[in-house]
């Protein structure tokens, strides 16, 4: 996807540069011809203002702007769902793949599975075993504590 956006943007920039150069040349040429014409005809100070651009330069400019726009839009990163359930579902389904940019690196603010706390929780505590251990500790450790 990224090379498409880059090439489209580059093509549009090329068009835009050409259109800019053409417009500049047109205005320069027009002003010189107008000046020479007015000097030849020795009119009063009625040098006409710069005439409107030729239609092909206008069309090229608009097409170039649209093309660059398209390329930039294609180059934006993917939007992310903002609702928690949709977002978490996407992480569950796609994992890191859904949150990596086009060149394969995972985004910096990818937080991972929001439910991983639930997945790694401990099981039930064996309270009877702990009680037995505590009793043993009291029998042994309590005795030493008394002795010391």
């Amino acid at each position: 996807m990224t090379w498409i956006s880059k090439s489209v943007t580059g093509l549009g920039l090329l068009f835009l540069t050409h259109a800019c150069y053409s417009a500049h040349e047109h205005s320069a040429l027009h002003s010189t011809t107008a000046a020479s014409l007015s000097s030849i005809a020795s009119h009063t100070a009625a040098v006409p203002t710069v005439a409107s651009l030729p239609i092909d330069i206008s069309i090229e400019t608009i097409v170039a702007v649209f093309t660059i726009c398209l390329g930039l839009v294609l180059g934006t990163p993917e939007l992310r769902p903002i609702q928690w359930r949709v977002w978490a579902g996407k992480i569950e389904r796609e994992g890191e793949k859904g949150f990596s940019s086009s060149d394969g690196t995972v985004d910096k603010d990818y937080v991972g599975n929001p439910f991983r706390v639930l997945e790694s929780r401990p099981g039930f505590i064996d309270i009877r075993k702990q009680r037995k251990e505590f009793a043993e500790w009291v029998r042994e450790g309590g005795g030493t504590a008394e002795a010391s």
Partner: protein
Amino acid sequence: MLTERELQISPIVQESVLHNTKTLTTLHNLTASLFGVGAGILGLESYLGFVFYLVFSLITSALVYAFRVRPGLIQESHDPGKSSMERYFRSSIELWTGGLFEGLSGFVLTWTLFYGLVRA
């Protein structure tokens, strides 16, 4: 506007909101300067230039809708009836007019610059 009760029932991921807004703002800033270049080359003046900016900003938003919002909606087509924009933005106004005013200064800057360059 979402009430607190609705936010409790269906919470919103702040990081995603931030990411989407940042993406849109960057795009609008970039394209606004670009539109300024276009308007300067065309030699537009006064209201015509702002109309140019408005039209092309709407086109940009439409392109974002077509290429970024729409594919996600098609993927999730088993959830019909919902407002289509709610997957990525809190309201559809955010997409259509979100970056309109941030980019305006950049637009005027490049517009005047290229107008002066071309008609020098």
